[in-house]
């Protein structure tokens, strides 16, 4: 009986004091990915897992040899609890991390072996640290997180201390490094070199050392504030956001939460408005209130469905409603080839949106006592009176389409050296060459081809690189200084393409080779946005060089996979829009977990 009583006591203590993983998400979180069914991840190796961006950033120092040949199942994580990945942002710092259930602490710390136990000021909470990372464990739930103070805040505080110590401001120092040089040096400074520099004057901190101290101090202070909120004041996201709390009840495999209004509040680009025009800022803040993205992930056989409800405040919603009040432009159909590898359509009504924006914003701006803002309002009002809005918005209505037609060889010139066998002297020869080029078509709807014609006529008369070819225009070397760009201005469309075949022989469209109405039915009947990508065709061929690092992170996870990705949207109301992403994959696949992680990673990269 005594043993049973003890056991019950322990269980009660856990029930009272132990928090669930979702109860450890800090209130600063702006985006949260919650995985309800993490059983899907059991077979994924830890080494594979840490390749993902969302894991790398948090745990770059953690995963070393301790993860070799282990799966997530062997990491001590409790698969009956939710796994939450969060990104938080405030005006002063970013905080990223994971919350999870722990089944076996011994196994857990075999993987997270770099963490050392630290003194915990919170009852029933254990704290562990490793470099800049922290783990806090309450009951059977844990949070692993990292705080990154905003660079400009660290610099501002460091500068202030530096000057107070009687030093010349660092920005004034002629020998101070440029941002790029600093980046290179900090990347490549070896330990020996760092010591060498420190030996210069060991009793006094250099500017960079002082900056490091400020950074560290800000981190410590913030970590304490976050832990106080989580373990003492109970100010965590789940208690702050009823929408998030409600979303966690979803029976789907995963959920996604993103609070755009918090993103707005913490966006540093609004600092000026916040301090100089606080009343206007408050009005804008109200506009963004209720701006949330709530997503759910469903995993079916060979299919992942991601549904995203974008919720708006009433006024912003009214703008989106007007913006998307546009019909599908059937004129684009002939210009989408039936064998395209990817295409998108975007139906917008800029005229309506303009009217709604001015209706909402001008009264807010007019309240300002500031001369500059009043002048801005006057300029907008005068332009509104004098401009021919009919002509302007008929020229560019807002609707767009784009297609990717794969990689084709295009003709270019190259130089080679030819050698004389007599003495190996060499001469330069210009010869024909071929290079791979992604072929695209991008166009927008217009009711005023006549106005676009006037612009193109001027360009072809006065710019030598622009040629009027009758049915189309050609601009020399406009694509990467190497290939021509073709412009087609007809049929209520203004089209840019590097597809020579489309411009020269199909300027009225691909004819029978165009996409069928059946294939584009969803785009025609849906909301503002539609995208279709045949992964097996499109992604493999996309050259890495065309994308920046962030874009490549998204593209790379799709490489080597087959299937069809489709994005649709509902009609927009003044309270929201629903976006649906369907990813149907074919052939053999190891498990859905990999596809799920790919999706999470892409969302993470996009929402960073």
């Amino acid at each position: 009986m005594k043993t049973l009583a003890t056991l019950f006591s322990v269980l009660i203590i856990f029930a009272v004091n132990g928090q669930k993983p979702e109860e450890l998400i800090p209130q600063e979180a702006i985006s949260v990915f919650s995985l309800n069914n993490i059983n899907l991840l059991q077979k994924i190796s830890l080494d594979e897992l840490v390749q993902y961006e969302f894991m790398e950033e948090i745990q770059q120092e953690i995963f070393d040899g301790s993860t070799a040949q282990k799966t997530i199942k062997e990491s001590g994580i409790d698969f009956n609890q939710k796994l939450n990945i969060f990104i938080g942002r405030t005006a002063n710092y970013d905080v990223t991390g994971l919350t999870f259930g722990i089944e076996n602490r011994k196994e857990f710390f075999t993987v997270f072996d770099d963490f050392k136990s630290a003194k915990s000021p919170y009852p029933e909470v254990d704290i562990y640290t490793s470099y800049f990372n922290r783990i806090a464990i309450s009951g059977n739930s844990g949070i692993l997180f990292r705080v990154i103070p905003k660079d400009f805040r660290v610099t501002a505080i460091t500068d202030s201390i530096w000057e107070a110590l009687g030093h010349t401001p660092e920005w004034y120092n002629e020998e101070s490094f440029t941002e790029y040089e600093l980046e290179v040096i900090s990347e490549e400074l070896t330990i020996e070199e760092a010591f060498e520099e420190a030996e210069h004057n060991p009793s006094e901190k250099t500017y960079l050392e002082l900056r490091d101290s400020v950074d560290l101090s800000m981190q410590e202070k913030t970590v304490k504030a976050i832990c106080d909120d989580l373990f003492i004041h109970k100010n965590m996201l789940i208690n702050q956001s009823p929408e998030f709390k409600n979303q966690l009840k979803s029976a789907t495999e995963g959920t996604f939460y993103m609070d755009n209004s918090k993103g707005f509040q913490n966006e540093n680009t609004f600092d000026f408005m916040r301090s100089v025009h606080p009343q206007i800022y408050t009005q804008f803040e109200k506009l963004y209130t209720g701006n949330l993205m709530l997503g759910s992930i469903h995993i079916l056989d060979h299919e992942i469905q991601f549904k995203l409800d974008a919720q708006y405040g009433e006024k912003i919603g009214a703008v989106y409603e007007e913006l998307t009040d546009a019909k599908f432009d059937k004129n684009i159909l002939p210009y989408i080839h039936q064998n395209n590898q990817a295409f998108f359509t975007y139906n917008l009504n800029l005229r309506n949106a303009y009217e709604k924006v001015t209706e909402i914003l001008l009264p807010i701006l007019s309240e300002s006592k500031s001369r500059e803002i009043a002048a801005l309002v006057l300029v907008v009002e005068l332009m509104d009176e004098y401009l021919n809005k009919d002509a302007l918005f008929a020229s560019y209505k807002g609707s767009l389409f784009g297609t990717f037609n794969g990689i084709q060889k295009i003709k270019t010139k190259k130089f080679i050296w030819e050698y004389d066998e007599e003495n190996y002297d060499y001469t330069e020869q210009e010869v024909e060459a071929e290079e791979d080029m992604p072929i695209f078509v991008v166009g927008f709807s217009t009711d005023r081809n006549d106005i676009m014609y006037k612009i193109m006529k001027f360009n072809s008369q006065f710019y030598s690189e622009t040629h009027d070819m009758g049915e189309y225009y050609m601009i020399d070397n406009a694509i990467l200084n190497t290939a021509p760009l073709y412009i087609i201005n007809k049929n209520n469309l203004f089209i840019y393409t590097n597809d020579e075949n489309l411009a020269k022989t199909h300027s009225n469209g691909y004819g029978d080779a165009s996409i069928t109405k059946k294939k584009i039915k969803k785009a025609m009947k849906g909301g503002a946005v539609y995208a279709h990508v045949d992964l097996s065709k499109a992604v493999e061929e996309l050259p890495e060089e065309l994308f920046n690092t962030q874009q490549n992170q998204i593209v790379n996870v799709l490489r080597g996979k087959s299937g069809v990705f489709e994005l649709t949207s509902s009609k927009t109301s003044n309270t929201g829009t629903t976006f649906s992403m369907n990813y149907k994959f074919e052939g053999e696949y190891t498990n859905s977990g990999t596809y799920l992680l790919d999706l999470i990673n892409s969302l993470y990269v996009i929402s960073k």
Partner: protein
Amino acid sequence: MRFLQFIFAILSAVLLTGCVEIIDDLTLNSDGSGCFKYNVNLSSSKIKINSILALDSLDGKRVPSLDEMKQKITSLHEKLKLQPGISNAKLEADYTNFIFKFSCDFASIEDLQYAIKLIAISENKGKPIPELDHKWLIFSGTHLERSVPKITLKKSKQITAKDQLKLKEGTYTSITRFDKEIRAFNNDSAKLSTNKKAIMLRTDTYSLVQNPRLLDNLIDLKQ
């Protein structure tokens, strides 16, 4: 080391664009003076280079702007012009077709090597680079020993299959010319010109990255 790393980073980026053609062309007179030419031809990868230059970063590394590249190349050229024993330093840079031709005359092979070493050290913020203590050219008037410094480059295991293919498309040609006929040489891959006064070594850039010593050669001239 920072300078070497920078050079290797640039070299890797250039070599991995594929279809790079590089010629090093050394003319040696009997008195040890001569002319050195270094040509890099990337004209068959214009699209790739332009697309890389349009990016802020690639593989997590910052991509320098065209202006920064121009400044760096011009600054290296200006520095070389000032080195003792170096004259007539010329640079032809075609940033449309990405063809770069550099040439200079030197009073002695030691001057050429010393000049290159000084510039490298200056780019390395004055810190010595032990790898450059190696004499890669030793000439006695009738005997030339050409060897590449021992440099640790990425081994094949670290180069992805895709990058290996790109590297294999590139070529590296090393030409050494003399005012006398060549009597013998020890590199089996080398080819003698018809007039016997020039010798050429050609390899693909992948093989060169794997084994820089492919260009090593001992050359004996007729008296």
